[in-house]
């Protein structure tokens, strides 16, 4: 199955009985350089970033003295309207992107689960965007959602606006990436200065992300469908279940572990999304497409407010960890069994 990445694997090796040299000590010794590198580059550097986030370093001049009070930078971060908007955008992006990718991925997997001529070839068409850089995706979709020539033009050509006109509705003309509008305004406590709704400019970005990564969800589901034995399907057919009910009541529930893995892997990608938005729309009008990844980049490299950038990056790390650490622990425990 697909989530075998962690869970496949192997029974523990039996007690060593061979006559060859027992070189158990050699194993940790050879691993040491790799592990030291990881401890410095991952854990050491995270520790230093946490330090910076608690420091007074907010100009090009390096200043690692600790700020008073300790959480001042974090407090400022969460009070900043822009960062509140970023959190809103991340949540909206993550939810819609996950629903879109997993929904489309599942649908395509089920469709390709049928006997269709050329299904291997068609599957490859759905998967190829995964091989591309987010930057390529961003450049292409930015062009497609250009309000003057892109999707709006296609809507005209396909006669959708003509159709809307017949019903007396106005033409469908959306500014997409350059629109500062936020659709909806959920009431919030006074501390929340961001308007809570769906930014129009975020929709093209979500579509681009779904285009790129729904193939991954499909591949996960196809791998999962491959492990469901024909007996299950035949039994369901004998019981008189329709194809639709077989999928709804039997196969999709059986695929639940795949759904969870897919949601977690895609979810953690969307929590740290950066390249795609940077290439496609940047922070957007009124920060409509801004996300923490871009906030960190700008605070660190343009504004040189290192402590604020570091604090935002630690918030990103915490969000990703809340998703990934339980997943890692559960997956590795499965291996032990």
């Amino acid at each position, binding site marked *: 199955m697909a989530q*075998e*990445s962690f869970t*496949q*694997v*192997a029974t*523990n090796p039996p007690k060593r009985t*061979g*006559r*060859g040299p027992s*070189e158990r000590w*050699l*194993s*940790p010794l050879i*691993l040491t350089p*790799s*592990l030291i590198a*990881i401890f*410095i580059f*991952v854990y050491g550097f*995270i520790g*230093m970033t946490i330090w*910076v986030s608690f420091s007074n370093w907010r100009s090009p001049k390096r200043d690692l003295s600790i700020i008073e009070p300790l959480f001042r930078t974090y407090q400022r971060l969460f009070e900043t309207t822009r960062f509140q908007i970023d959190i809103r955008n991340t949540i909206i992006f993550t939810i819609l992107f996950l629903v879109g990718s997993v929904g489309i991925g599942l649908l395509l997997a089920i469709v390709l689960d049928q006997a*269709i001529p050329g299904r291997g070839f*068609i599957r*490859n068409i*759905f*998967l*190829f965007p995964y*091989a*591309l*850089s987010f*930057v390529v995706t*961003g*450049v*292409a979709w930015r*062009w*497609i959602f250009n309000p003057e020539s892109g999707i709006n033009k296609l809507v005209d050509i396909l006669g959708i606006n003509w159709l809307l006109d017949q019903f007396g509705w106005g033409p469908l003309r959306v500014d997409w990436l350059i629109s500062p509008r936020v659709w909806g305004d959920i009431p919030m406590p006074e501390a929340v200065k961001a308007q809570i709704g769906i930014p129009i400019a975020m929709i093209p970005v979500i579509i681009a992300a779904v*285009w790129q990564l729904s193939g991954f969800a499909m*591949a*996960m589901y196809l791998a999962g469908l491959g492990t469901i034995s024909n007996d299950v399907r035949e039994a369901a057919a*004998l019981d*008189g279940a329709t*194809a*639709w009910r*077989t999928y709804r009541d039997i196969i999709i529930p059986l695929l639940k572990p795949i759904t969870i893995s897919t949601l977690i*892997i895609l979810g*953690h*990608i969307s929590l*740290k*999304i950066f390249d795609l938005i*940077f290439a496609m729309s940047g922070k957007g009008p009124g920060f409509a497409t801004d996300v*923490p990844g871009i906030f960190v980049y700008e605070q660190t490299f343009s504004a040189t407010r290192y402590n604020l950038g570091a604090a935002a*990056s*630690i918030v990103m*790390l915490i969000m*990703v960890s809340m998703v*990934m*650490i339980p997943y*890692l622990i559960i997956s*590795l425990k499965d291996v032990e069994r």
Partner: protein
Amino acid sequence: MSAQSFPASIRPSRNRRFTFRKVFVFLILLLAILFYLMPMYVLVISGLKEATNVSISAMWALPETATTGGFREAWSKLGPNMSQSFLLVIPATVISSVLGAINGYLFSKWRFRGSEILFALLLFGMFIPYQSILIPLIEFLDFIGLYGSLPGLITVHVIYGLPITSLIFRNYFANIPYEIVEAARIDGAGLVSIFRQIMLPLSLPAFVVVGIFQFTNIWNEFLFGLTIITNPRHQPITVALNNLSGSFSVSWNVVMAGAVLTALPTLVVYILLGRFFIRGMLAGSMKG
């Protein structure tokens, strides 16, 4: 639908040409294929248009006469960065694959007390948002004199590639029966010779999977290239493409052609070695 109220095995409409289900499946496939191919269509036809033709109303139409001018200009702008990307990706992929093979072998066949926890700590490294290590990383690279240089970027990709390459190799080696190792040990083979004489010759498929995975990942990577290499001429192609698309003096047909050029190497790998690509994607399932 009446076709749906019969069990699959006795459905009478089975032999008829058009059933509701077939039409439904066909429609979904058709829409999906159009959706997935549309951006590539736009990139390629826009790249083949003349600069004066590209930005106006005829975006979706085929070019009246295809010209290679856009591609030539994109090549003259991105060519040097493409060589930089190859100079980055090839050594980084080779080194991280070899290190991953060694680590994966040890973590699967030579476990020791605490090795599982160390492996989990190693794995966590591939999920972190790289923004959270960027400031110390740049200071460190600056300190050791590698900031702004290709060797610095290679080092970074090798180190942050260790978790995924070790994971894929560990899972691969775990499927090789332990009895093989045991038999070799009875013949007097040690840790190193078992790796060299037994494991390595068996691990070609894993090297292909890891190699493709790392090639694609590093080629497509953006944040490190953007922040570690400061000289625009030496930046990887993804960064150069982004600069190209952000500059107002470049017309869109050139940007679109540039996007095609940037996508080409990983697309070729995908088309030629798709099966291994999918295996790597499912095993690692990481991007960004």
